[in-house]
Each structure stands twice: as structure tokens, then as C-alpha cells.
């Protein structure tokens, strides 16, 4: 999932303080799972903003809605009839949702309510860690299911580097060396001989190096 973190309320207030009616828009997908922008977080932010404006002696309308998703056009259409009632929207979706809202409702200011961080997994409640960088050419088949692009600080394709010490990365002793993990995993799979095979130069054109990307699937297009 896409992992996001809450923005400080003070920062959000700074962005929206001049508006007279604001919609706080939650998203029921990834940001709900990582507890940054779901229905509950939308309710908390809306409540905090209502109190802030009342305390400032201003009557600002703050409503909250949580959409199933903000990255699909059909869900954004649900707002079509009521979005005119608001001066601005605070989207608690990831950066994709914020931008998709801005594209759909072109004349409406859309402010981000979360900091979008990475594609990751819930390692434990309250702890999310990065697992994928969306490089566009998955090499997990030959690295034992552990991604050196996302989990090695240097994105090495033939590792580890000299900074790997006791299974940890030199940039931080709390970070596992991805290549140590790969070696351990290949050994566990009985495929350690594959470690000796040099990885060819990776085609980075499918990563961000090729500019903004798109996936075209004619088989599912209408």
C-alpha cells in the first residue's frame, strides 16, 4: 500500500486559514490502513479545525466526507453535486488522490492533509516500512523476494557493499543490509549458487529516469 504520515495540524491551518468553508476529504484505501487519512482521521482533523476557527471567532463551515478511493474517477464524481458548497478541500489521500481531485475539480483549491511517504507494509501497528520503489522492472525473482532497489541505501544490484556490518547498513545500525537479507534468503531457498551470477545493467528508463510514467493495457481498455 501507499504509506502516508499525518501532517502537523499547524501546517494545515496555515494553508487553509483564509477559507470560509472547507471539506475534509478522507480516503478509504491505503491511508485508512496506515491510519493517516481514513474516516477517523478525517473526523479528528475536522473537529480540530472547527475548534480552531471557533476559537478565532470565525464561523467556518467544516464538513467531512470519506470516499472509497480518490484515485478513481467514479468515486470523485460523488462530490460533483456538493463540492460547490466549499471554498477548499483538504484531501487526506496520498499525493495521487490530491492531484486527481485537483484535476477533476479544476477551480477548487485542494490541499494535502498528509505527507505521502512510500510503498510499504505494516510491519507492526504503528510501524510501516518501505518495500517497493516502483522501478518498473521487478527483479525480485532473482533476489529471493527481497528488493535491493527499495531496501539497499545504494540500490546495489550486486551487493553487499563494504558498509555492510553484522547484517546492518552503514547509514544506520537499525537498518538491515538488504544484501545480507538476500544472501540469507537465497541460502534458505537452497539457491545460493545464483548469488554468484552478476546482475546485468538495469534499464532505468522504466524508473523515474524516464520521466513521468504510464501503464497502457489495451486488453482492458474500453
Amino acid at each position, binding site marked *: 500500500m501507499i504509506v502516508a504520515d499525518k501532517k502537523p*495540524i499547524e501546517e494545515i491551518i496555515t494553508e487553509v486559514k483564509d477559507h470560509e468553508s472547507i471539506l475534509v476529504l478522507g480516503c478509504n484505501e491505503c491511508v485508512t490502513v496506515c491510519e493517516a487519512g481514513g474516516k477517523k482521521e478525517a473526523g*479528528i482533523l475536522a473537529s*480540530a479545525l472547527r475548534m*480552531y476557527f471557533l476559537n478565532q471567532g470565525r464561523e467556518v463551515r467544516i464538513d467531512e466526507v470519506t470516499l472509497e478511493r480518490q484515485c478513481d474517477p467514479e468515486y470523485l464524481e460523488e462530490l460533483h453535486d456538493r463540492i460547490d458548497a466549499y471554498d477548499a478541500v483538504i484531501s487526506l489521500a496520498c499525493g495521487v488522490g490530491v492531484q486527481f481531485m485537483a484535476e477533476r475539480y479544476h477551480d477548487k483549491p485542494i490541499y494535502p492533509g498528509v505527507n505521502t511517504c512510500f510503498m510499504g507494509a505494516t510491519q507492526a501497528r504503528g510501524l510501516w516500512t518501505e518495500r517497493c520503489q516502483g522501478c518498473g522492472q521487478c527483479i525480485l525473482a532473482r533476489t529471493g523476494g527481497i528488493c535491493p532497489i527499495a531496501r539497499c541505501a545504494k540500490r546495489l544490484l550486486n551487493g553487499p557493499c563494504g558498509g555492510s556490518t553484522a547484517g546492518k547498513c552503514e547509514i544506520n545500525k537499525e537498518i538491515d543490509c538488504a544484501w545480507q537479507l538476500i544472501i540469507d534468503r537465497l541460502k534458505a531457498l537452497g539457491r545460493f549458487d545464483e548469488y554468484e551470477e552478476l546482475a546485468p545493467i538495469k534499464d532505468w528508463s522504466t524508473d523515474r529516469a524516464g520521466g513521468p510514467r504510464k501503464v497502457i493495457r489495451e486488453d482492458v481498455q474500453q
Partner: protein
Amino acid sequence: MRLEYSACIRIIRVPCTGKVDSLHLLRAFEKGADGVYVVGCMEGECHFNNGNFRARKRVEQVRRILDAVGIGGDRVQMYNLSSSDGPLFAKFASEMVDRIRQAGPNPIKLARKRAAA
């Protein structure tokens, strides 16, 4: 025991303080409560293992929010006691009432009154 504590406290019973959500606390302030405190079981003695720890974290979260919006985080507090400790319950009540009297009325309540006038 016939202990006395301030009559301005409204008790809301919950099955466990773990049931108390940040939104419940915030709504109370939005509706004009001057202060809210959560009284849970002693730490380590929760029937549901960690309900009172969850409540404490939520109280801390609400405290930060109240500070951020200018209401004052001191208006919310978490207490722990054993269910049979009546004197301590009364003491917490007095402590909280004193604290809120010092902080004054909830600014939201005053703002609403001003707006209605």
C-alpha cells in the same frame, strides 16, 4: 464512604477506557466541555490487557491537538486507579476541577455564546 466531589462532573460510563476514542474526547470539547478526564484501571491491570494504555495514548494525542488549536492541552487528563479506590476517585475529581477552574471556561463555549448574542 459518602465521599464528596464536585457536582459539575458528568460521568460517562464505558466498558473499558480502551473504548474511549480521540473523537469522543474532541467532540466533548467541541460541544463546550471545559475539561475531560479519563479514569482507567491501574496500568498493567486492564481486563482487556491494554485498554488503559490505548486510552492514555489517545488522551496524549488529543492534548497535542488541543494545544495546536489554542484550546489548551491541560484540559484533558488521564488518571489510573483501582476500582475500589473511592478516595482516590474523589481526589482526582477535585484535582481536575481545580485545574479547569484555573484554566477558565472552554474558549469554544465562549465563542459560541458570543456568536449567538
